[in-house]
Each structure stands twice: as C-alpha cells, then as structure tokens.
C-alpha cells in the first residue's frame, strides 16, 4: 500500500501549497480541539444558571468574567459556544458519512453497471431532487419526533444525488481504463473490480463531497433548531440562536449573544468549502490554473 505510507507527506505538501485548504483544515482542527477539551476549556457549566449576588445574571454584557456575556436565563455564552462544537461535529460527521456512503455506493453501481441500475438510480435522484429540503425536514420532524435523528435522516436521504452524480461520471471514465480491462481478463468478478479496484480511485472525490456535506448538515441542524424542531436538550448553536431570537436578544442589541453562535456555524461550514476548493485543484489538475 504505497499510497497510505505516503499520505502524511502528501497531505503536508498539499496544505503548504493550498492556502485555502490549509485555513479550512486549521478551522476543523481548532473545532475538534474545542470539542474534545470542551469541559476543560469552557469557563462555566454551559447549563448552569449563574448568579450575581442573589440575582440571576441575565443579559450581562461582555466582560472579563464572561467574555461573551450571558443569556437571558443567566448562562455563559462562551461556554455554550464551546460545548456547541460537540453537537456540531456529531451531527456533521454522522450525516456526512451516511450521505457520502449512500452517494458513493449508488454512483459506483450506476456508473459501473449501467443499464437498468443506472436508470433506476437516476430516476430516484430525480424524485429526491423534487423534494424541498427544509420543508421536508420540518414536516418529518413534526410528524415523527423532533431531534437530531430527523436532521441526519433528511440530509442523508435528500443530499446523496450530488455525490452520486459526480462519482458516477468519474466511474464512467475509470471503467474504460486498461487496468479495469486487465482485471476483467484475469477473471476478477464484477463485485471485486467495483469495490477493490474502482472504489479506492473515487474515494478522494467522495471525501471532498463529505467535507461539504458536513457543512450542509450543520446548517440543516441550525435551521431546524431555529424553527423549534431541534432537540432542545442538545447544546447546539442552532438552539442558542433560537433562544436568542425568542428572548428579544435582537431588540436588546445583545450582539454578544446572537453573533457568536452564527459565526461559529459560518466558520465551520466555510472550512468545508475551503477544503473542497483547495482539493479540487489537487484532484482535477486541469482546473488548477483557474
């Protein structure tokens, strides 16, 4: 496995050349660190109702004690933002993994097998593209039960066609290569060619779509929470924004409350975009001079 041992080196060289991807990767790194060490980094318990003397510390502005102030119920905003990384990573990574797995599998099958398989997958994709994303998620959340599960399900069920389409076209060109022909001649089964020979070739592309899918999943979770269909027990950035909106943070000008969670969402989604933009150049050298 020549590729695996060279991977760290290639990754380093890639990040050094691609400023966009490097920025994206460092954002992911910071968020991962915040999530892992949230309990040590957060200055307060994010759910604790803080008090000043005997009164609840409501709507405190930014200060040395509370870098980002407090919420209407007297909770520390910074601690909530830090703990929010956990929810964001959980939703983002799970949904991205599922959506890329489905998209890659269906793209691989329809691209390599062609014929009826291809027709059925294309047809399924057409149907799925006809379902409006947010409305579908809301209706599903209302009819079953609100929470992260619905978000992950919706992202996986509705966003796979993007990945599948790209993987399919890649597989279509790979299928015609000489080494596939060689494998066929030496008697490899179709399954073996698909999963052992072709699949590893499209995995980098799949990972690229995964980094964008993390972003969509986090945005979806935020929108669902904002509209009141998230899991109120989860400490997520979307739930924070919903609380801020519902508790007149806007009319009070409590920027310290509603600006940070949105900025956190934005930076995490942006990181995915930057990584995918940077790696596009690596994966498709033809586009490099653009």
């Amino acid at each position: 496995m020549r590729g695996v041992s060279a991977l760290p080196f290639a990754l380093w060289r890639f990040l050094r050349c691609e400023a966009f991807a490097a920025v994206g990767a460092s954002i992911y790194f910071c968020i991962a660190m915040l999530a892992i060490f949230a309990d040590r980094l957060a200055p307060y318990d994010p759910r604790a109702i803080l008090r000043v003397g005997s009164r609840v510390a409501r709507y405190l502005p930014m200060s040395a004690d509370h870098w980002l102030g407090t919420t209407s119920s007297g909770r520390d905003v910074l601690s909530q933002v830090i703990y929010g990384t956990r929810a964001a990573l959980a939703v983002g990574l799970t949904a991205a993994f599922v959506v890329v797995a489905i998209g890659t599998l269906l793209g691989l099958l329809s691209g390599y097998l062609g014929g009826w398989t291809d027709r059925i997958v294309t047809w399924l994709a057409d149907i799925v593209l006809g379902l409006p994303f947010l409305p579908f998620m809301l209706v599903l959340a209302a009819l079953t039960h609100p929470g992260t599960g619905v978000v992950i399900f919706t992202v996986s069920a509705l966003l796979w066609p993007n990945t599948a389409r790209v993987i399919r076209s890649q597989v279509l060109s790979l299928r015609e290569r000489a080494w596939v022909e060689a494998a066929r001649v030496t008697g490899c089964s179709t399954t073996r060619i698909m999963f052992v020979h072709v699949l590893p070739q499209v995995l980098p592309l799949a990972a690229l779509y995964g980094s964008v899918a993390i972003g969509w999943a986090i945005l979806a979770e935020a929108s669902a929470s904002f509209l009141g269909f998230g899991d109120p027990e989860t400490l997520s950035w979307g739930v924070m924004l919903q609380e801020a909106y519902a508790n007149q943070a806007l009319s009070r000008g409590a920027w310290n409350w509603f600006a940070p969670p949105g900025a956190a969402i934005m930076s995490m989604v942006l990181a995915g975009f930057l990584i995918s933009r940077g790696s596009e150049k690596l994966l498709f050298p033809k586009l490099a001079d653009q």
Partner: protein
Amino acid sequence: MRRALGRLGHLFLVMWVVASLTFVLFRLMPGDPTLNFLSPSFSEETRAALLKGFGLDKSIWQQYLIYMNNLLHGDLGMSFLQGKSVYALLAEALPNTIILTIVSVCGAYAFGIVAGAFLAFQRGGATEAVAIPVALATRAAPEFWLGMLLLAGLSFEAGWFPTGGALSPGEQPGSFSVLLLSRDYWWHLALPALTLMLYLLGLPLLLMRATMLDVLNDEFIVMARMKGLSRWSIIMRHAARNALLPIVTAFALGLGASIGGNVVIESVFAWPGIGRLLVQAVQSADYPLAQGAFILIAAVLVVMNSVADFVYSALDPRVSLRARR
C-alpha cells in the same frame, strides 16, 4: 418536439411520485389520522362533511384515490387554524413569496454576474484574495442568522427598516395590485430581500467567474484577441454570452430551490409567505395546511428543475455554437 413531450411526461411522473410520497408522509404521523385531519373545534356537521369528502372513514387505498382526485381539483381541505380553505390561504401567501424570491434572486444574479465577470479579470490579485473567501462566507452563514444581524443592526438599532411583517399596523392590506404600488410594502420587503440576496449571491458570482475563466481560455477568444478587438468587446460580446449559459440554468434551479428555502427567512422577518405558513401550520399541528403548503413548494421545485433541464439542453453551448457556425 418529441424530447419536449418526453420531458413533460417525466415532469408529471415526478410530480405524481412526490404527491404520493406526501400522502404517505402525512399518514406516518402517530395517532388517529382521522383526528389529525379534523379539528375538534369543527362543528359536528362540518366534521361529518369533511369525513365524507376526504373519505377518512374508508380504506387507505380509497383515501389515496380521493386525495389524488382532490389534488387535481385544487381541493386541499380546510385549515384547522382559521377555518378557511387551504387553497384560499395558500393563494393569499403565494404572491408574497414569489415577490420576495424574484426580487432577491434577480438581484443576486444581476450583481453576481457582473462581480463574477469582473473578478475573472482580476485573477491572482488582492481583490480576488478577499472577494472569494467573502463570497464563500456568505454561502456558509446560516441565512436566518444573516437576517438576525441585519434586523438587529438596521431595524432595531438604526431604525431604518420595519422589524417584520409585510405592512405597518393600520395599513389596509387591499388587493395585491394595490399592495404592489404601496411604498410601505416595499419598505417591509427590503430587509428580507436583502438578506436572501446576500445569501444567494455567492453561487452566481463564483459560477460566473469560473465559467468566464474557462471561456477566456477558449480558442475563439484567442482568435478575437488576435483580430485586435478591444478588451471590453471581448468580454461582453464574446466571452460573457457563452459564460452565461450555466448561469441561466443555475438561475432556474435557484428560483425553485429558494421558494422552499425561504422558510427560515420568512420566519425571521414574519413575512407572510408560503414558508412561514408551512412553519406555523407544522408548529400548530395544522396538518391539512402543512400538506397543502408542502405540495405547493414541491410542485414549484419540480417545475423549476424541469425548466432548468430544458434550458440547459436548449442552450447547450456546443449545440448553439454549431448552429451559429
């Protein structure tokens, strides 16, 4: 012609499957479906009439046939909330959503196309190093959060714009054509439209830039340059026309998608459109209204997807170029 008919058939097929999926979806809900479609607040006679009209006492297959038949006749049932027909409520909200969408999508594409073409010529410069991450950032920000920032800054602090709704209190919501001429209406529209525009801006901008760069490397541009045409003439008369093709497709897709995606923006600004109606319906378990709004949004999306498909094949650069030669 045959291809167009085939597309139309495909459109109806997708529409039918989406409508059927909606039927299944709305019967997944827990509890007695009869109760979910009949508000306890309805009088005994209304309940009996609706029960019969929707065949809620019949088998699921008969219900499905009745549902499809009603759908084809635009009969979507009665809303729980206001006791009005779902059709009337949707008809009231749809124009607001369409205005919001068209204004912001057109604004975003007009600005995005110009800025994208400009950026293609500033390649490698400092402008690009700033503009591209900014364009990516507007796409990465949650749209409702952009709305919250603008609302807090421009409405609550500066007081330049109203904080929500479509009309100031006391204004009479006359007919739609009257509304369109009212300054108050446009004043209320400004902030939600601006938010949506900001959110949508990134795609046309980046797409235009990428296709422009692609086209500029094409042989016919080199030819034009060799002929000694001015830079402006090359950009506008030769490059931009060809670069616009993918943008037109994206525009059609964008219109369809943002009618459904407006859900959160309409909620932030309390803009009385289809999206907000859907959210309210879902929050208050007004299932007939939620179902109607969902089907309407899905129908718009399906139709716009087909339009984009059609436009793409009709304007395919290779096809049209060959025809011109």
